[in-house]
């Protein structure tokens, strides 16, 4: 039945639901032989979910998966691998403590007549194969000792070794040096000639335009656009990724942000100067006035979350200073930052924000326990008071302050986290994706709250992948690219068009 010109891999109307999130909503995607197909979208757009469906890690709730024209079901990654689908994950998924050669051959080691692993042949072949990828170091060394780029190459070599017909690359260049990127593109060109289909996930527009034939854009779990990449200019591509489709804007109206609020002549409450962290940030500087919301714009991987972490003292810095009200925060660490008046809402509220097993009450009080206690003994009365104040103010919907945070909806979890930040009486709020993964109603409330807090004189740094939210919420926008400041939008320039222009043209 399999037609010779059938697509290598095809999904039609695939959906995937997770508790509280619809990660994929009726998405279709086709990969033809010998094409490099870019898959793009911001965080939470559904790219990784789609990849995991294609590689058998997840089973879709609905929709069809066809391989060479035949309907298939992958019950696990092994099924997909058997079907010739190999994946290179963003984080290198190899075993760092094992040697390079053993990693390359794990599970398919060459064996001698006794059925034992033929180590010398394995090492010899590994060296030969890797030479083709520009790797000449000793294959007997542990993989973990190689540079990340080289590890990525080993992962690629491993993926391609098994007569792969489809190779999925999830941000393969994020840890590569320019020279290694060239090697990678060389390998991709070779695969291309062999008729291998490649799904290429990246946020680097230059790369996409250089090597990809076709592009599919996802946003909020939905398919936004699919077509030849040469028919789409950069601005159009960026607006597909960040902008809302016009129909949706009309339906929902604007976000709940109000107007501007910065008092122009006041002194900055936060001054960040020359933040440098190897491979992550290069010379990031900006200021925030009291009552001002400064947005950090840029694509995923541009250094937005890293900047937030650096200001909060949670990312080791090679160089750079953080000043609050003109006083430098010494020995930056989370405790010192908190004392100085910096409150941070991390991007991943479940992993780094909340203690999900504890109650709302415990979570709100956690950062201010010393203030709510005498001689180390906490005052339940004081805690009740502060918890009640903030639960009312943020309109946290729960059965009571003793409810487990893990049982709340995403929106209410976020409110609890914000309550904890506000309870510390901060001067500066760092908000990393404050409205991700929460429903529309809670989103509006959180946006209104950010506005209100700025109006009260707090300095706010806002990170959002939602361009509308970023533009309407911010008084100024600092645009980041590759860990450095690429531009700044102020006043009249704070528009979605300008933002996309800066992102699309700041390409080096």
């Amino acid at each position, binding site marked *: 039945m399999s037609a010779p010109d059938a697509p290598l891999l095809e999904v039609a109307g695939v959906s995937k639901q997770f508790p509280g999130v619809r990660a994929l909503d009726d998405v279709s995607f086709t990969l033809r032989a010998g094409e490099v197909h870019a898959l793009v979208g911001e965080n939470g757009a559904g790219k990784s979910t789609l990849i995991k469906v294609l590689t058998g890690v997840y089973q879709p709730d609905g929709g069809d998966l066809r391989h060479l024209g035949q309907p298939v079901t992958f019950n696990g*990654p*092994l099924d997909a*691998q058997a079907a010739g689908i190999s*994946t290179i*994950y963003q984080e290198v*998924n*190899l*075993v*760092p*403590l*094992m040697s390079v050669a*053993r990693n390359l051959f*794990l*599970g398919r*080691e060459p064996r001698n007549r006794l*059925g*034992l*692993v033929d*180590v010398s042949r394995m090492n010899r072949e590994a060296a030969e194969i890797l030479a083709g990828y520009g790797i000449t170091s000793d294959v007997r060394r542990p993989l*973990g*000792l*190689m*540079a990340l780029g080289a590890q990525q190459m080993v992962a690629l070599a*491993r993926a391609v070794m098994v007569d792969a017909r489809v190779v999925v690359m999830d941000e393969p260049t994020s840890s590569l040096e320019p020279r290694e990127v060239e090697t990678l593109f060389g390998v991709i060109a070779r695969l291309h000639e062999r008729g291998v289909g490649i799904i290429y996930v990246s946020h680097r527009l230059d790369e996409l335009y250089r090597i990809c034939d076709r592009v599919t854009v996802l946003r909020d779990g939905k398919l936004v656009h699919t077509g030849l990449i040469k028919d789409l200019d950069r601005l159009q591509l960026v607006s597909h990724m960040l902008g809302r489709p016009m129909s949706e804007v009309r339906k929902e109206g604007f976000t709940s942000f109000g107007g501007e609020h910065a008092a122009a002549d006041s002194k900055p409450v936060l001054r960040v100067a020359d933040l440098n962290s190897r491979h992550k940030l*290069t010379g990031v500087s900006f200021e925030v006035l009291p009552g001002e919301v400064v947005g950090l714009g840029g694509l995923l991987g541009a250094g937005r979350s890293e900047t937030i972490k650096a200001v909060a003292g949670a990312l080791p810095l090679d160089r750079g200073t953080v000043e609050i009200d003109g006083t430098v925060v010494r020995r930056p660490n989370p405790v010192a930052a908190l004392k100085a008046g910096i409150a941070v809402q991390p991007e991943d509220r479940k992993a780094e924000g909340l203690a999900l097993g504890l109650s709302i009450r415990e979570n709100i009080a956690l950062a201010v326990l010393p203030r709510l206690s005498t001689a180390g003994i906490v005052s339940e009365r004081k805690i009740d008071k502060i918890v009640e104040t903030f639960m009312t103010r943020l309109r946290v919907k729960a059965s009571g302050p003793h409810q487990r945070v893990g049982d709340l909806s995403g929106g209410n979890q976020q409110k609890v986290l914000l309550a904890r930040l506000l309870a510390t009486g901060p001067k500066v709020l760092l908000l990393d994706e404050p409205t991700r993964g929460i429903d529309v109603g809670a989103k509006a409330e959180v946006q209104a709250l950010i506005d209100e807090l700025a109006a009260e004189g707090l300095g706010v740094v806002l990170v959002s992948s939602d361009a509308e939210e970023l533009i309407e919420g911010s008084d100024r926008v600092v645009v980041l690219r590759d860990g450095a400041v690429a531009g700044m939008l102020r006043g009249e320039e704070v528009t979605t068009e300008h933002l996309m222009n800066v992102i699309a043209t700041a390409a080096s």
Partner: protein
Amino acid sequence: MTLVAEPQLEKAEAASLRTERIVELVQRQGALAVLGIVLVVGLVAYDNFRSFDNAATILVSAAPAALIALGMTFVIITGGIDLSVGSLYVLGGVLAAWASQYGVAAAFAVPLAACGVFGLVQGLVIAYARLAPFIVTLAGLLGARGLMLALSDEGGTTYLVDPGAFKDFGKGELLGIKYSVYLVVVLFVIGMVALYRTRFGQSVYALGGSEDAARLMGVRIRGTQIKVYVLSGLLAGLAGTINAARLGSGVTVLGTGMELDAIAAVVVGGTLLTGGAGTLGGTIAGVLLLQVIQNLINQDGKITSAWQTVISGAFIALVVVAQTYLARLRRVASG
């Protein structure tokens, strides 16, 4: 971004490569080096230490511990731990002594079967219920000891080994060295082949190095887990068996703390308790080192045997702390 001039870069690379080599050497051969030093000290300082008989004694008394440590090495490389081996060792001894009345084959087969099944059950629970290995084997420790007590009238009965082939095995010597030592050597050689030269060995390392990566690379996680716990159970049972053959009885009061000695030997031998790296050569060196220290303490007579525990405890602490820092150093060196 500061740019480093090329020659400087090369120099820095060469230096970091050198640090890396040294670190690796210390990590791999540390136990062997210390063993060498201790041996030299022993040879110089104690006359009685310098005899063939003493060397043979050290080897024979190290044999059961070596077998347990052999299985433990596999378990620890997968990132697990087996606390039940001390109890299985005693259980194996009691069963061997009891079964020796039915011949030498039974004396080996019965304890091996029982301890192997015990390891299998633990492995199944760890692999399928996904409970922490330490808690499962902790329960195994109690369970196996209970079983042993039940079989020996609450420890009141000591089965004597029947005179015959099994007892002869315990007493037998070749070139002045007991058979059990040869058995241990053979098993270690087989173990090395299995660990370094088979796909099973590769999956043991992969599982301990990164379970998620191993799964994505197609390693059968559950199968590997079950196999190592069966192996560990079998070897603990065998250790008990050869000890029963040597002593001529299934002693019920031994074995507490055996699991700790085995873990100590494995860790001192350079195997990472976090899994993913380790060598059987290191384990041999670790076992012998602890045994030689014990022997020297006995030779000396002035310091009590209590020091041996202090020393092995301090050794574990020292080795794991050193490993943690060495691993950091390596990461820094390789940038």
